[in-house]
């Protein structure tokens, strides 16, 4: 079990969280082309190594957090609350 240090609740089991996936910059919907939008939807880096991703503390504080995790060792070296807490409440 991975322990995820939630910025609000402290270290908690990963089973309390919902995995949202790798962080990616969302293109501007007003100017985006079809190809760019599909890239945003489907293409991930899927790296072997450190990755920055979002988790949702669904069985806890119900806030989103951003974690840096290593995809081979599952070590988490940092977590922080997601910027604007969008959609969390």
């Amino acid at each position: 079990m991975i322990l995820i240090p939630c910025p609000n609740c402290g270290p908690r089991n990963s089973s309390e969280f919902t995995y949202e996936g790798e962080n990616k910059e969302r293109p501007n919907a007003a100017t985006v082309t079809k190809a760019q939008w599909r890239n945003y939807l489907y293409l991930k880096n899927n790296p072997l190594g450190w990755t920055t991703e979002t988790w949702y503390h669904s069985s806890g504080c119900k806030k989103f957090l951003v974690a840096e995790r290593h995809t081979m060792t599952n070590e988490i070296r940092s977590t922080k609350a997601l910027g604007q807490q969008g959609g969390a409440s």
Partner: protein
Amino acid sequence: MSRNKPVKYSALGLFKRGLSGKEWPRVWRDVDLKKTYDVVIIGAGVHGLSTAYYLAKNHGVKNVAVVDRAYVGGGGSGRNTAILRSNYLTPEGVRFYDRSVDLYRHLAADLNFNVMFAPRGHLTLAHNDGALRTMRWRAEVNKVQGIDSEVIGPEEIKKLVPYMDVSDDTRYPILGALYHPPGGIIRHDAVNWGYARAADAMGVEIHQKTEVLGINTAGGKVTGVRTNRGDVSAPIVINCTAGWATLIADMAGVKLPIITHPLQAAVTEPVQMFLSSVVVSGSLHVYVSQTDRGELVFGASTDPYAAYSMRSSLEFTEELAGHVLELMPSISKMRVLRQWSGLCDITPDFSPIMGFTEVEGFLVDVGWGTYGFKAGPASGEAMAQLAATNKTPEIISAFDLARFEEGRLASERGAAAVGH
């Protein structure tokens, strides 16, 4: 090119060897890596080996190297739960997987290798109305394609699997099941070894412990691969890896819509045969079958986050055991012998990616999620045809890489994975 003449396996041969006590020869050769090949295949799993086999057998392309960073069948091809079936949801998917089951049916004779195919029947349980509706839908799609598949009720399930708890007083009562008699299990290692031996016999070279470190391209065309044993040039390079598919594709500058998730499985101690069918429950995230050795093989859904780690976890075993016991409470005294995990390349539509990329000569046979092993022969046959003729065969035309850009996904979400 040197041809290898393997010993033909037969009952009489076995008897003679038993009497003479003569050693069995090596099953495939170990040879030096050459500087150039017609085709280099990355990944010596069922997909890579079957592609090489059909290239040599159906198209006469024998100057082929299959390279693997580890050993034959050490990845997903030796870590899956060896279930075969063709009762998918889209007509393209059903057609494709049925071709694979068909090839598996005759594989032992084709390869002169006992692959222990056992078409014991396959049950996908429905625990709610939504699931039952999907089963009916699948059954109708299957029947139109000529595949034996039907929805059955709890009494009939009880007849097929007497130890199943089909009563109403469980947390998730069983409402029915999709019954697919041609489905079954096979010995996955034997399939890998059989393909390796048969391909080797026709002149294909299998290079284990040969890691691809880079892919050479020039002017948008592939020219070869760099390995830990030196550079190799080839006009066609096929990426047949699972788990590492995106890392290999990155070397050629090709981006794939794939996320890698681990999937865990476990086996119990062997007991006398009591479970003939393969039992799958999407709601309970579990599938069970009993091998010819008597062990129960359990698989689950993929781990809920992307990772390349192949470590097993205790919470998996606990959850799995809980779910299995909901289906069959009477096996609670059985002990788990071992557990392991493998890597699954998940695509957005739960269908594989086979065919050309924007780099000429760099072909992919990837994105095999949780359904790669059962597709091995059909994908090898189709990829061999594609590589030999430079044209996409009809049977895999729905699964090309361009479908994501062009917005024509082939969604198998309802039939390809458990727990979705």
